[in-house]
């Protein structure tokens, strides 16, 4: 366990070192960039709030990836499910004006989960029925979600003005803010709850057992009497619902309306975060804080030092590539004489 965590941390360090090389080669100071990034992420209460605010949707998408992954499926379309969920929440937020706050929020969250779940159901059904590979279909459906919601905020749901966005949702549908003036909202509590719930469902319930069995060996699971197709569909629906809730949280807690392109790619982070977190929900939460810090700190870094924000996405990708093959890190460790860690 300790060794596994060590390997992850080493992968992260390697990514930062590679990032530093890229920064120096392109004429920026890695020290200045990284220190600005750190201050921007953890410098004061506001920045900590911003970091957690960015970590929240990323935890949702990481849980979504994780849930499908444990069942042997690759849901790399959390971005689309998040966006569709966000749109559903925005629509409910806007149309059910006058509902009392708790009911309105609950209904909007439910809509987000259902819409996200539906966006997960489509690839799951196509996989179970026609064998269409979910890696491709979830990705393609993300593009569809992006364009479809873009259409909705540019035409039927467009608020007056130049920006492609809906009108704001009423007070009764808004999740309360924490650590104001940062953008952190009660969505954080929801995701912490989901972390615990995911851990519980996967480890302690029959459903979780069946899903994990399917993930480890579908043929054996089938022989043991587990309905693999049903499990597959259920897993992707739940996965999509989790991502959809993440989108709801963004709308009800952060933006208070649907804005075209509001997600800066939170869905794509899910895979990375789940992996860096060692493929367990609690680990994913901590990894999400790291990725949230990269995003919130990255913005400050760009403002202060002028380093393009995209170095952050480069760092994230490098982390994935380094954790993708733990054997590589182990080999590196062995070569460098740290044999006891490499075993």
């Amino acid at each position: 366990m300790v060794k596994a965590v060590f390997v992850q941390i080493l992968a992260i360090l390697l990514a930062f070192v590679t990032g530093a090389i890229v920064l120096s080669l392109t004429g920026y100071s890695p020290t200045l960039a990284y220190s600005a990034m750190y201050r921007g992420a953890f410098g004061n209460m506001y920045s900590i709030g911003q970091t957690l605010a960015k970590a929240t949707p990323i935890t949702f998408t990481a849980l979504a990836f994780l849930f499908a992954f444990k069942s042997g499926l690759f849901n790399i379309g959390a971005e689309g499910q998040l966006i569709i969920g966000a749109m559903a929440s925005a629509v409910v937020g806007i149309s059910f004006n006058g509902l009392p706050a708790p009911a309105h929020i609950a209904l909007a969250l439910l809509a987000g989960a259902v819409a996200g779940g539906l966006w997960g159901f489509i690839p799951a059904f196509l996989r179970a029925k026609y064998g269409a590979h979910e890696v491709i279909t979830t990705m393609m459906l993300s593009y569809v979600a992006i364009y479809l919601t873009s259409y909705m905020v540019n035409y039927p749901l467009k608020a007056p003005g130049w920006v492609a966005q809906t009108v704001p949702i009423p007070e009764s549908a808004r999740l309360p803010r924490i650590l104001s003036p940062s953008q952190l909202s009660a969505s954080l509590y929801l995701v912490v709850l989901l972390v615990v719930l995911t851990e519980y469902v996967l480890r302690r319930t029959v459903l979780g057992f069946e899903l994990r069995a399917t993930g480890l060996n579908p043929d054996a699971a089938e022989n043991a009497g587990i309905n693999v197709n049903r499990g597959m569909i259920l897993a992707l629906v739940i996965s999509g619902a989790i991502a959809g809730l993440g989108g709801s949280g963004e709308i009800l807690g952060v933006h208070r309306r649907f804005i075209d392109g509001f997600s800066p790619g939170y869905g794509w982070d899910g895979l990375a975060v789940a992996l860096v977190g060692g493929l367990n929900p609690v680990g994913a939460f901590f990894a999400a804080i790291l990725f949230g810090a990269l995003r919130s700190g990255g913005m400050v870094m760009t403002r202060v030092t002028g380093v393009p924000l995209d170095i952050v996405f480069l760092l994230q990708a490098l982390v994935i590539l380094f954790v993708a093959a733990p054997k590589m890190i182990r080999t590196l460790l062995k070569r460098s004489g740290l044999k006891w860690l490499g075993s």
Partner: protein
Amino acid sequence: MVGIIDIINVGLFAAALRMATPIAYASLGGIFSERVGVMNIGLEGMMLLSAFTGVAVTYYTANPWLGVLGAVLVGGLMGFFHALLTVKFSGDQVVSGAGINLFAMGFTAYMSQVLWGSRGASESVSGLKPISIPILKDLPVIGPILGTHTPLVYIMLLTVVLSYILLFRTPLGLRIRAVGEHPTAADTAGIDVHRVKYICVTLSGMFAGLGGAFMSLGHLSLFTYGMTGGRGFIAMAAMIFGKWMPVGAFGASLLFGFSDALQMRLQSLGLLPPQIILTIPYVLTVAVLSGVVGRAKAPSDYKPYEKG
């Protein structure tokens, strides 16, 4: 009033062939990789990095063919890296591919700002010039569709045929297929399984590189943010639709290229909101993967091979 003739004409078919070209290249890349048992969802990122490299090299050398060369080399390098992670270190193929995709997105956006000060688009460069094929270009109907294109389109057609011959008519092709279908048997027969995998996955990246180079140097003459727009994934769908055969994948690429061309044509006519039209290629991809294909059997089980 817009007539059907304004939408469907020889111009559309010529555009379809152009739009099919990057997809066909990448799907050939997918075939070479999957034929040796390595799934390559990194095709998307490899195309994007190559599209960027092509423009960057052309920007500094003013020679688009050097740009193409650079694109192919970078594609090959990424393919080699994918092989290193998945073959040597038995890393997960989807994870490695997704990592490559994100890397390409971040790296090209970052470097775009470093080199040109803009995240959205590079400066224009002199792209590849179209050539006309004598005689062919004067034929009715076929002439306007096939007669005049950038050389990368013709090279793609040639590559499809050569890939078929290589895979199904040569001893090397037999070895490649054996490695994917039955690595243990291949190993027993004295084939260096890992080496064949390295070669094919590197080649896969080089094909994606040609596709990327076509997009930024043959189709447009600049690099734009995320310009591949999921074509690497569409290429994988084309590969599956074509049952992992070069000619079949090319046919499927034509279908996707056609939907891409149609999408652009409809947009320019302004009949429907652009966002709705833009979904056409993606919806078609999902539809093709599900309904039309039936259950397609992959030529390998994608497991890393450990020498016993």
